[in-house]
């Protein structure tokens, strides 16, 4: 990534600030790696991989480490572990049924340390990704395995993925964040990423994603974390997404003045393009967005995503492709958000409305969902009000069609008058996939960034 203009987003210092009030505490491998890459002007790219077989998991991490890109490793857990169904893990392992991720709790810390032997040396960090509203066992296991980074959040790992009451998830996540913070006792500052900017993967308007990410970050901070990242998932419109990232930087800069933080972009999480070219186009757009929006890290997706769980080689290809696009992308010289940013205004209004409910962010989040101040469109969880709806404009912007009780002022153009039926919903869900497939087909060649990657 070429930095022609020095961008100084408020609060996002190029190198992590030293951990406050604990001279013997150093940043863990993950936070340290990100801050060094950021200082060097390099975008960190990260896969979403998770394999059941420890040998394959090790091979995947090794391939990630050796990829021609600035990478961090990922261990994604299987969905039985995520839902706490360890009996199902045991029976699947016994019967030789392949799990869709790495069952870390069942394998335990020793076997995981063994799996990671030699890989995590020289500062190559690994993050555990799971999706659990009750992550205590997962956090305890990853800590004992010597891993200092994970992700999730009381809202983002509860509402979209479980029927666990929000009240329970908030308590679980408070305990888990505090437990993770205890890493400091052995001199390591752990890192926790919020998944709040990825709610439901698609069709959640940028302002709510920004607000939820920031609120979960505040929750982590309140429960002891001093190194966090805020996620944002690429949505339907590049310009709107860039505005959202700038809004996120501005809001985080205002609220996180004394901790280490960075922004992580997720490559589109919704229905993925069918063609390889379409998929690469979308990944390329995500890499450009990450650089232009000032993010430090990008979670990639592979061209195989629409069809199946990708291979290791496909993951490496995606990492290297994204890194190439990032290298050829110039950072924006825009400092802060545009003065008229509706995304910033909405996100800021949402965050402040929630903060005013209660000094304890966990309690405030619960109250906010109870009152519908936060309301995730199309989310089926019993604790979500379920009154908000969205739609796409002609030019592909994701906008509110109904806000329920959320403190969001109507846009100048007023609220949309129609709502999505099943056919329109399907069209909206596959809008990005269709656009990328069509644009790639029209070009008839590979995207410019790939043509230009001759080394």
């Amino acid at each position, binding site marked *: 990534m070429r930095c022609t203009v020095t961008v100084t987003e408020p609060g996002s210092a190029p190198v992590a600030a030293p951990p406050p009030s604990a001279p013997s505490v150093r940043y863990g491998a993950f936070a340290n790696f990100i801050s060094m890459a950021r200082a060097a002007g390099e975008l960190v790219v990260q896969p979403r991989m998770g394999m059941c077989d420890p040998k394959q998991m090790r091979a995947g991490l090794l391939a990630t480490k050796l990829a021609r890109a600035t990478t961090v490793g990922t261990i994604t857990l299987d*969905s039985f572990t995520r839902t706490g169904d360890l009996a*199902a893990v045991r029976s699947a392992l016994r019967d030789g*049924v392949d799990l*869709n991720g790495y069952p870390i709790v069942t394998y335990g810390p020793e076997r995981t340390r063994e799996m990671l032997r030699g890989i995590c040396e020289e500062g190559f960090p690994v993050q555990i990704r799971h999706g659990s509203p009750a992550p205590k066992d997962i956090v305890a296991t990853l800590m004992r395995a010597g891993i200092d980074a994970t992700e999730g959040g009381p809202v983002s790992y509860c509402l979209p993925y479980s029927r666990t009451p929000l009240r329970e998830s908030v308590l679980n996540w408070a305990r888990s964040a505090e437990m993770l913070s205890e890493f400091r006792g052995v001199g390591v500052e752990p890192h926790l990423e919020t998944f709040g900017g990825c709610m*439901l993967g698609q069709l959640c308007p940028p302002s709510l994603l920004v607000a939820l990410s920031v609120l979960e970050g505040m929750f982590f901070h309140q429960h002891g974390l001093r190194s966090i990242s805020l996620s944002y998932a690429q949505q339907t419109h590049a310009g709107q997404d860039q505005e959202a990232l700038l809004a996120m930087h501005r809001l985080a800069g205002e609220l996180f003045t004394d901790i280490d933080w960075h922004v992580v972009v997720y490559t589109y999480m919704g229905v993925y393009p069918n063609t390889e070219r379409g998929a690469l186009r979308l990944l390329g757009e995500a890499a450009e967005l990450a650089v232009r929006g000032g993010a430090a890290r990008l979670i990639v997706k592979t061209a195989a995503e629409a069809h199946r769980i990708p291979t290791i080689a496909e993951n490496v290809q995606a990492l290297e492709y994204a890194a190439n696009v990032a290298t050829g992308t110039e950072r924006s010289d825009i400092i802060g958000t545009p003065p008229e940013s509706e995304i910033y205004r909405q996100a800021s209004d949402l965050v402040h409305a929630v903060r005013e409910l209660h000094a304890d962010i966990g309690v405030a989040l619960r109250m906010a969902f109870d009152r519908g101040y936060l309301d995730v469109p*199309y989310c089926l969880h019993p604790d979500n009000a379920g009154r908000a709806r969205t739609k796409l404009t002609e030019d592909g912007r994701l906008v509110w069609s109904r806000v329920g009780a959320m403190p969001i002022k109507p846009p100048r153009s007023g609220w949309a008058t129609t709502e*999505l*039926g099943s056919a329109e*919903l*399907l069209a909206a869900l596959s809008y990005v996939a269709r656009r990328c497939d069509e644009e790639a087909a029209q070009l008839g060649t590979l995207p410019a960034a790939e043509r230009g990657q001759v080394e």
Partner: protein
Amino acid sequence: MNSTNSTRVLRVLVTTVASDSHSWNLVYLQLMLEEMGHIVDNLGPCAPVDEMIARCLESRPDLVVVSSVNGHGYADGMRLISTLRSHRDLRGIPVVIGGKLGIHGTENQDHTDRLLLAGFDAVFSDGGGLRSFESFVRQLPAGAA
């Protein structure tokens, strides 16, 4: 709402398997079934089998639709259907499953046969399965259970 036949209103329970966190397939199915004029009770993602059974025993739906895309649909689906069919009162309820049921993308014929044998009334594959599902729903009599 463009109900095509108001005399055949079905009460449909839409659900997924316990380990599956995906929502959009469930949101879509709800809208589609509602537009066909049916009444939908949507359990949302990750509904445990026990909760689904309890809901079935309580409300006796005319149809149970299980949709799964996370790759554990086969394993979880097998557990779900054997538990459901073990309840005498629920043996007659039409129960169907569809989506991406395995993690390798190609091994689904074998899965389909086993799922049918275990007690599902129909299995709809990813891609093309939606139309067959619609036809299946259209030929269901109301109050089948």
